């Protein structure tokens, strides 16, 4: 496969910065970019939680501890009393199974660090700051676990705050669909697509991911399609890979 259109930064990071406070600050700065989309989504989740009868404290606890927008949205949709515990756990697993793959993809960047440097950032990562961390590590050739942690931290606080605010003041917001808020995450990832797309090696993973996700979404109940699409697409990337000699 011809990799000549790719900058050198596409190779594994040339150096590992470990965990630096400069990285935490940098991550916090760049992690703020998706914050407005996160806040809008958090407001919508808060509105739904309030409609489903959760208290504001329960909402805040859920946001801080479960800490996953898609999983919270999906589990709140099936939230009824008495609580369908098994279905709720399965929904969270289905929605968050993609994190198994996303965190696996961080191993080449942070695998050589001591656990107390790598795991805090991995434990609080979300889709957006995960993508930004990988993009920056590829761009600068420097993998800093501080960046992962800092960018995660600035998403954690607005997430808990905005879901609580949505719960308390959501009735003034109206229907989130009308404001296009349900489109926020898709819009953010559409903008990220441009930065990750490489003509030489992204076509197969992209097409396979789309086809598998669309098919699984139609055929399998629950949000398993995200995991299935990401797994199939990334494996297509491995399959299409040709070792350079």
């Amino acid at each position, binding site marked *: 496969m011809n990799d000549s259109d790719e900058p050198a930064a596409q190779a594994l990071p040339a150096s590992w910065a470990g965990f630096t406070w400069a990285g935490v600050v940098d991550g916090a700065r760049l992690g703020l*970019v*998706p914050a*407005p*989309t996160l806040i809008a989504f958090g407001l919508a989740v808060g509105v739904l939680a309030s409609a489903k009868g*959760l*208290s504001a404290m329960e909402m805040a606890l*859920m946001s801080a*501890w479960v800490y996953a927008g898609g*999983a919270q949205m999906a589990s709140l949709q099936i939230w009824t009393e*008495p*609580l369908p515990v098994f279905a*709720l*756990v399965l929904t*969270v697993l289905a929605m*968050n199974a*993609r*994190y*198994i793959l996303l*965190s696996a*993809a*961080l*191993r*080449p960047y*942070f*695998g050589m660090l001591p656990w107390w440097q790598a795991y805090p950032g*991995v*434990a609080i990562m979300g889709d957006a700051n995960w993508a930004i961390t*990988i993009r920056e590590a590829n761009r600068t050739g420097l993998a800093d676990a501080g960046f992962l942690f800092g960018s995660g931290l600035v998403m954690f606080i607005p997430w808990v705050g905005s879901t609580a605010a949505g719960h308390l003041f959501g009735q003034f917001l109206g229907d989130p669909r*009308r*404001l*296009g808020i349900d489109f*926020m995450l898709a*819009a*953010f*990832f*559409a*903008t*990220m*697509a*441009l930065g990750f797309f490489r003509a030489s*090696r992204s076509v197969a993973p*992209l097409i*396979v*991911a*789309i086809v*598998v996700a669309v098919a699984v*979404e139609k055929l399998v109940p629950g949000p398993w399609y*995200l995991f*299935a*699409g*990401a*797994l*199939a*697409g*990334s*494996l*297509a990337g*491995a399959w*299409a890979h040709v*070792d350079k000699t």
Partner: protein
Amino acid sequence: MSIRPEVFHVILLLGLASLACRLSGFFLMRYVAITPRVDAWLRAMPIALIGALLGPVAVNGGLPEWLGLATAVGLMYWTANEFAGAIGACAVVALMRAAMA
């Protein structure tokens, strides 16, 4: 305004499921050697996730969603600013939905 015990227990369980997903991939890769092919697999992850997220949005959506996705990519191309791209796209989706309602 309080936390009911049964809700607390369920949220505890959901959070453990969430945390297990985040930590397990990173942990398990400890036992996998990063060969060039494994590296290619992991490197394809961002674009694969983006495809898996956007594919169903595009297929299940209509004109507002299609124009929204095009706006996000277009604005990103011209401004190199994710925030502008995402907000612009949502504005287009909201306006189109209002226009078509």
